[in-house]
């Protein structure tokens, strides 16, 4: 496999052919913010946080592969402003109240807000009334905290191989659903493996019984499962 040389923020770095900008930047010690990306899962380019500037155009770092001589800028002022706007839009979209959230302190959305310096939300809170599904005997789903990153959908489909989760509806009415949109507890395909809980970046998917700040996800375990399967062939 050929190596490629590219510029990231003015520094020459090398990358493997076929690698994404996100991977190349990480190897070079440049941290690009992401939410919908999760190591071990396919990339969808949905959250738009990882947008970087390549030759004057914005490209998602998670789905753009490196090419020779590419000139990538990951943290321009415009990009930083866009990222902050995106996080604000997410906070305004549903009911993200950290003070009462099971994932507070272990939440990627919360961490991202801190990282990007979001100290307040300038947009109107949409405050939709979202349901909570606790029909499953072990797990729960709170749509108020879902950011539609689809990591649960991909973990279930690509790692567990079941595809219990999917997304129904469109726009801000879109919701993650199980099977044909029946309560999670009545899903005929769910194996209760819990990989969706590992993958969830927020408090949307949680273990029943967890209370404020008790729900710790383990997204890195998805990559671990995928990698160990690969090694064992």
């Amino acid at each position, binding site marked *: 496999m050929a190596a490629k040389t590219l510029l990231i923020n003015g520094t020459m770095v090398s990358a493997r052919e076929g690698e994404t900008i996100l991977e190349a930047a990480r190897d070079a010690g440049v941290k690009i913010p992401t939410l919908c990306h999760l190591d071990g899962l396919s990339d969808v380019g949905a959250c738009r946080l990882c947008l970087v500037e390549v030759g004057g155009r914005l490209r998602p770092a998670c789905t753009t592969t490196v090419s020779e001589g590419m000139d990538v800028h990951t943290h321009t002022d415009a990009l930083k402003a866009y990222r902050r706007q*995106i996080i604000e839009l997410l906070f305004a979209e549903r009911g993200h109240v950290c003070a009462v959230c099971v994932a507070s302190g272990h939440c990627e959305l919360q961490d991202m807000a801190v990282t990007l310096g979001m100290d307040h939300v300038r947009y109107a809170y949409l405050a939709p009334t979202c349901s909570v599904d606790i029909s499953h005997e072990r797990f729960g789903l709170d749509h108020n905290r879902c950011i539609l990153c689809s990591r649960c959908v991909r973990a279930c489909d690509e790692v567990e191989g079941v595809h219990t989760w999917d997304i129904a*509806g*469109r726009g801000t009415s879109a919701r993650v659903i199980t099977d044909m949109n029946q309560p999670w507890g009545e899903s005929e395909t769910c194996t209760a493996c819990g990989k969706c809980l590992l993958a969830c970046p927020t408090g949307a998917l949680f273990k029943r019984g967890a209370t404020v700040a008790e729900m710790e996800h383990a997204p890195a375990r998805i990559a671990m499962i995928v990698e160990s399967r690969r090694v064992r062939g």
Partner: protein
Amino acid sequence: MELHDLQLIARRERERRRRIRIHCCTSSGCLASQGLEIQKRLEAAVAEAGLEGEVEVVGVGCIGSCGQGPMVEIAPEGTLYEYVRPEDADAIVAAINGGECSVQRGDPLRPFFTRQFPIVRKNAGKIDPERIEEYIAAGGYRSLYRAINEMTPAEVIDEITRSGLRGRGGAGYPTGLKWSTVAKSRGERKYVVCNGDEGDPGAFMDRSVLESDPHLVLEGMCIAAYAIGADQGYIYVRGEYPFAIQRLQKAINQAKKFGLLGSQIFDSTFDFRVDIRVGAGAFVCGEETALLASIEGRRGQPRPRPPYPAESGLWGKPTLINNVETFANIASIIEHGPDWYASIGTETSRGTKVFALTGKIHNTGLIEVPMGITLREIVHQLGGGGHSGSEVKAVQTGGPSGGCIPASLFDTPVDYESLAQVGSIMGSGGMVVMDNSTNMVELAKFYMEFCKDESCGKCVPCRVGTVQIHRLLEKITAGQGSQADIDQLQELCQLLRNTSLCGLGQSAPNPVMSTLKYFTEEYEHLIER
């Protein structure tokens, strides 16, 4: 099927025809106002008058001036009747042999008709779209014969490239370049896809083409398949077009029966099958990657490009996607040659474009005009100016993805670059005319509401940004807005334009940004109150 078979079918069809044909428009617009009933009553009237030997009543596709429909035309002499009612049938038939008739007559020599340049619509309103024989009699499928028997795939692509044809779905990507990219992509199978998911409010060009001349689109697809090496095609039509789907299915069945689709077309080694896929009502499925996902049976939402469909499309195979109107141009280019096509239009935008002229305009309907015509000519000459003489204020091209162009810029020529320069897009061909009674902020709000409802929800800027922009516009139109809201509006518009995943989100701010630019005073008036 051989060339002489085509010629034989055409000759028989001409011999079968009566001297006089009464053309009844049976396209959606006229059908909605009793078009079929009018056709039936005319048939009965002809029979009653004992004129069956010399007069026939033919259901044809869209005649064009939909606002004056239902339309009836007496061919070949050319008398046009407007606003026809079923009870007018006897009078119309009686007038054929010189009688007087009180039904309102249209003027076939008015600029609405004479300024047009029909290529895509050459058969529309002239042939019965449900009979392949009529299409063949009008010269149909000769270009396909020529392509397969007299040209190599590379020569076909070369002709399309030299014609200068650009994608009529709106973005204007050079068609020949797209074809040659797919032809060069490696894959054990390739696909041709026709995008008939026309969804812009006020746009009905593709519906009309499919309803009026479905074989023209099939022939274009077939030639494309030959050129790129595909053996399977799909036409993706929105579910809201049941009549177009029905006619298209009929056309596919007939073409198969005549050996013009299927195996060994024109006794060559070229096979091509076409199936229809019906959309389920999502605007975003007009975006090519979402459309492909929908054909594959998955949730219709876009994915980042590259890879482009030309490289990895349907089921990961190289796929050519063109719009209905693009395919409808192909047969004429092969028939008359690329130089002829390139001689029409402007330096960068060759050929013609079909527009659906709607809104506060005198002549509502479908027009096909050479590129380079000015907006003023379209609005004031073809369109006849504002509705009931009102003053036209602006036109919106490209639907929710396009911008508002004020009357002061009506000398802008209609071509891809000029429209982009004034902050709009060519789009698929919707042209909505506004007069002084239209509030431009309300208009921007309407389009944003559309985009918010049609956003698939995959990427954050489009999913949430459209809702926030819509809320700001609601606040402003309610007289509760401030300058800070307008600043935030602009900031959000920039975010959507620059960071959204697909064209829907990227272009959703266009109506807001163009009205903010050209009609600032309407926004200011609302925030001052």
